[in-house]
């Protein structure tokens, strides 16, 4: 049961990180490897501030800003420095490794005997007389839902729509007067703010921050986004952010399952990589097969009825087929 609670609680916190990864990977179409560094930066920031006597909730809020700063660096390297996006992220990530050691002053900072978000919630559960896991889950769920709601709202504002269009068709959005450098930087800052925040909460949940805690985090984020898309689907923004959060929780349960099946913790990263590889390879293939079936069905209809589109006359079916094929190509390019 402890494993179940642990997985769910961690999943809720990692869900915030997954929504951040969704922002770059899906919305901006930018695979941002800053995440490994900014997650740790969040943990390091929160832990160091708490040890220095800060209120843990205030320290958690600060991680939003340090995360955003990491995203800003990657964004500037990519847009103003014209460095390839993957490389820009890696450079920030590597630089952050040293910065995180500087922030902590050593390789890890223990939060035992410190007042953290977790100890605050434990105190709350005692005063309410309820199980502490109930309070953890309720509060983490609330935080996750508030963040999800804010991101959903933002992506439908004029600015958020411009950010989405930047990832979708930069040529088009530039031709309508959008400075894509700014929308890319904004998206990266927002994403890494969430990643850093998640890292700060995880450090408090585990009771320590460690220079290694972010390794492979981008892959976990990607796994969460993709698993979520398979489980929940992502036809709208509201569903897509939900999918990322659900995917993060599902990922935790996959890991818990692997551990109960006596898998060595050392093999977990390999397992994660395999999950992401499968999740990247399989869904596009399913999509292609579905498309082919749809095309064949359209061909059959063509023989029976000439047209269902009055504007196109008899050419409708080849036109529909063509547009379907071109959507397929777009999908491949992405």
């Amino acid at each position: 049961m402890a494993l179940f609670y642990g997985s769910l609680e961690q999943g809720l916190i990692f869900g915030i990180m997954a929504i951040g990864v969704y922002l770059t990977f899906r919305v901006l179409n930018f695979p941002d490897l800053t995440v490994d560094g900014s997650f740790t930066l969040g943990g390091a920031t929160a832990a160091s501030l708490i040890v220095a006597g800060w209120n843990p909730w205030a320290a958690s809020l600060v991680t939003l800003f340090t995360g955003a700063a990491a995203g800003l660096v990657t964004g500037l390297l990519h847009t103003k420095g014209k460095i390839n996006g993957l490389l820009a992220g890696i450079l920030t990530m590597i630089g952050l490794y040293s910065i995180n050691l500087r922030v902590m002053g050593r390789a890890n900072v223990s939060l035992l005997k410190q007042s953290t978000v977790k100890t605050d919630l434990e105190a709350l559960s005692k005063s309410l007389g309820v199980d502490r896991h109930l309070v953890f889950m309720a509060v983490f769920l609330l935080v996750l839902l508030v963040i999800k709601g804010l991101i959903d709202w933002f992506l439908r504002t004029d600015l958020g729509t411009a950010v989405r269009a930047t990832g979708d068709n930069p040529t088009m959005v530039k031709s309508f007067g959008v400075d894509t450098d700014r929308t890319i930087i904004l998206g990266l800052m927002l994403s890494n703010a969430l990643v850093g925040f998640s890292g700060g909460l995880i450090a408090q949940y585990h009771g320590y921050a460690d220079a290694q805690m972010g390794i492979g985090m981008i892959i976990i984020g990607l796994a969460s986004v993709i698993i979520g898309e398979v489980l929940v689907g992502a036809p709208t923004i509201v569903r897509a952010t939900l999918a990322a959060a659900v995917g993060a929780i599902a990922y935790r349960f996959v890991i818990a399952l692997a551990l109960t099946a006596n898998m060595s913790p050392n093999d977990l990263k390999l397992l994660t990589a395999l999950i992401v590889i499968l999740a990247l390879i399989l869904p596009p293939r399913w999509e292609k097969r579905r498309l082919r079936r749809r095309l064949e069905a359209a061909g059959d209809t063509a023989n029976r009825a000439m047209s269902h589109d009055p504007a196109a006359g008899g050419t409708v079916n080849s036109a529909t087929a063509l547009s379907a094929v071109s959507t397929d190509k777009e999908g491949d390019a992405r």
Partner: protein
Amino acid sequence: MTRPMLVVDGISKTFNPGTPNAKQALRDVRLSLQPGEFVIIIGSNGAGKSTLLSAIAGRFSVDRGRIVLDGVDMTDWPEHRRAKAIGRVFQDPLMGTSPSLSILENMAIADKRGKPRGLRSSLGAAHRRRYQEALKELELGLEGRLGAKVGTLSGGERQALSLLMATFTEPKLLLLDEHTAALDPKRAELVLKLTERIVRTKGLTTLMITHNMEHALRMGDRLIMMHGGEIVLDLGREEKARMRVPDLLAAFERVRGEALLDDRLVLG
């Protein structure tokens, strides 16, 4: 004479300068457009037509010369800043719209051209009504499909939508780069009719590239022919009205002293 809307003052551009691939794409091009003037550009492949439009839109900086829009020198402005006053429709119907966004969201992006994009939303009921009014003009039924993702539309529908979006905020200049070339004849005709109607009713200053001689003679107030990065022929309304397709070919041969050997030119 009123003040010209667009002045292209002697611009030149060489790509890959100093390398064996160096290509002078524009040579001292001079062009002036009156407000509301609708100018057609023709020319063979590599004549510099698209390069001229890209230079005006700011996709690259020119080596020499100035580009002045409505009295403001914008030669040194980046592309997105010029785009506040310039609408563009591309040859590829996929380029002018955002496929995974809905028709509504695409219209909202077009609607905010030249205005600050903040934390308000342009997707509300009042905006929807305005967009629907405009979409009705296309007569494609798109006004009833505001929530549909643009990626699900056909090429013709997407290009008609691109045109509507590019002209929605009545930009000072409209650049059409062979915007019907990728469409089948029926849809091309539809988009051309829309172009004529929108450009005329909104009185937009327009530069339109075409490979179709018949379209070139039928549309616009003025006809420009480019060759080798230069404007080699500039016909006003009256001269253009007297022209037939064979005259146009003859004029081309006379100016260049060479036969027109380009199978991409559609003789109409």
